[in-house]
């Protein structure tokens, strides 16, 4: 857990260094801290010995893989948000510090071994995000996003806590490995199929579905995505989803795999509703971030197929899927931020190809990757998840594939906008150097990431 401490301390230092009123220092602290943390995560690969350790956190290779991705996306969120943060030097420290603290929660959620750490991680992840969603203080929609997310999130947390209590009542332990062993050892008797345990599993599942934004628990996500500042939207879509799905996979893969026959049908229905609802709602959106929100709902539906399958490859497939999704969404929110359109209309993309060919190229790559066009990373993620799920759930995979087809429509609609002539002649867009670096890395990752990652067996 050395890397976790590094992330926390650099977040703390950036909070205090902001009193110097020099935003560059804050950016440097957090960037260096995150880079050290990523290096430590990589150094820990296949090498569990660390300076500090705690029984509640176990950094297996799976946890490390997810943590590295989360740290990269957090770093990108900080970098693309920096230009607006530095306009308010007195608050730079809070914005960046809160993002770092939220990442600490995400890493806890990926490495926990018992329900205590998991719950703490979830809270540490969520609380800074509630605040960050409202950081556009002069924008009413931002305050609305913050309040909505907070109220709904607090409710979901209550449901989760209730579910953990029921599970504890049925199994008598908080450790997820012991819960799994208990269910495995008693699966032929009535103890592992008591109604108490079933209620607990369903409650935990409901709160997870809320956190990842799956229908019918998705109602917060379009408003929150739209109202939050762009970099926070990117963080929510990339890091929070990664953390929530990592924990989802872990709890249902380690603690409840032997109850698969019980919870899988419920999850199948949720996945189907999510895929359809997200896609059909996205078709007529005119605001870009709402489009992203509904498309993210659809992507959650696809990713749920990996949780449903629960084969030995599912964790890695889900990781590649979310990794590719994160790069695309961060690139898109960064570009939408540079367009600087107050109303956030999709039509603001018109003429982007002429105004700035670099941004247009990255935007097209990211959109095509979300649509799942080979050989981009989004295609590989989708392919691996669907191929893995096909043996168990052929019908659902076919429905998901058909929905991918529907999805191409609204992604290409945005792509067409990029190449259309703008209505009013507008000036070229100046891209800050940080954005060029982040967007270039995103573009390269989208282009070759899938080809490279699918060659190796990571876990």
């Amino acid at each position, binding site marked *: 857990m050395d890397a976790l401490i590094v992330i926390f301390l650099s977040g*703390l230092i950036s*909070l205090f260094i902001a*009193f110097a009123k020099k935003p560059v220092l804050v950016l440097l602290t957090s960037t260096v801290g995150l880079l050290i943390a990523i290096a430590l995560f990589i150094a820990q690969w296949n090498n569990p010995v660390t300076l500090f350790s705690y029984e509640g956190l176990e950094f297996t290779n799976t946890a490390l893989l997810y943590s590295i991705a989360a740290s990269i996306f957090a770093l990108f969120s900080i970098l693309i948000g920096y230009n607006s943060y530095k306009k308010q030097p007195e608050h730079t420290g809070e914005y960046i510090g809160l993002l770092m603290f939220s990442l600490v929660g995400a890493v806890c959620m990926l490495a926990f071994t018992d329900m205590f750490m998991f719950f703490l991680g979830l809270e540490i992840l969520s609380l800074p995000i509630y605040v960050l969603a409202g950081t556009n203080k002069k924008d009413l929609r931002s305050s609305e996003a913050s309040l909505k997310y907070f109220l709904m999130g607090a409710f979901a947390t209550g449901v989760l806590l209730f579910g953990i209590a029921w599970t504890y*009542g049925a199994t008598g332990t908080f450790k997820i490995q012991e819960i799994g062993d208990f269910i495995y050892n008693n699966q032929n008797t009535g103890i592992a199929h008591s109604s*108490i345990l079933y209620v607990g599993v369903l409650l935990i599942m409901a709160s997870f579905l809320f956190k990842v934004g799956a229908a019918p628990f998705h109602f917060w996500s379009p408003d929150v995505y739209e109202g939050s500042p762009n970099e926070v939207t990117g963080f929510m879509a990339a890091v929070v989803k990664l953390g929530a799905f990592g924990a989802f996979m872990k709890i249902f893969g380690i603690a409840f795999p032997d109850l698969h026959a019980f919870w899988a049908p419920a999850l199948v229905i949720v996945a189907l509703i999510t895929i359809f609802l997200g896609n059909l709602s996205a078709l007529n959106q005119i605001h870009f971030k709402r489009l992203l929100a509904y498309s993210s709902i659809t992507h959650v539906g696809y990713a749920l197929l990996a949780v449903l399958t629960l084969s030995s490859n599912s964790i890695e497939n889900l990781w590649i899927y979310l990794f590719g999704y994160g790069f695309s969404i961060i690139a898109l929110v960064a570009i939408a931020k540079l367009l600087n359109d107050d109303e956030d209309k999709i039509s603001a993309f018109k003429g982007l190809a002429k105004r700035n060919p670099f941004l247009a190229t990255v935007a097209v790559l990211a959109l095509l990757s979300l649509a799942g066009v080979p050989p981009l990373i989004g295609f590989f993620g989708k392919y691996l998840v669907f191929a893995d799920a096909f043996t168990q759930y052929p019908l659902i995979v076919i429905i998901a594939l058909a929905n991918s087809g529907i999805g191409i429509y609204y992604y290409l609609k945005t792509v067409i906008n990029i190449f259309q002539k703008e209505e009013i002649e507008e000036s070229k867009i100046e891209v800050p150097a940080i954005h060029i670096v982040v967007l270039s890395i995103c573009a390269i990752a989208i282009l070759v990431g899938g080809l490279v990652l699918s060659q190796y067996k990571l876990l």
Partner: protein
Amino acid sequence: MSTANDYLPILIQAGVAIGFVVLVLVVTHVLGPKLNSKKKDANFECGIESKGDARFPVSVRYFLTAILFVLFDVEVIFFYPYAVNFSDLKLEGLLAVIMFVAFFLVGFFYVLKKGALEWEK
């Protein structure tokens, strides 16, 4: 470990609690004498006459100070169980408490630097 049957006492207790509340509310309405008069129906029978609306905007500084007070209040509450177990926990407990207090002090220092406790600003 436990099955749904083990929780039957809790259900019974919940039933008793709700039943008691409902019973008392109903019984007082049925049995109580009903005497109405102008004085009896007034909101306050004594004291100063109420004026204006209770929902007027309060300066946000009150909330800030109150929230910060709650934080440190809770910190002190954590000391009670520690004080009781002080000798049993030995050095390990002391280190844990020092760490806990250190985190709080960092927060307190931040609050001071931020000027959250300066009333006139």
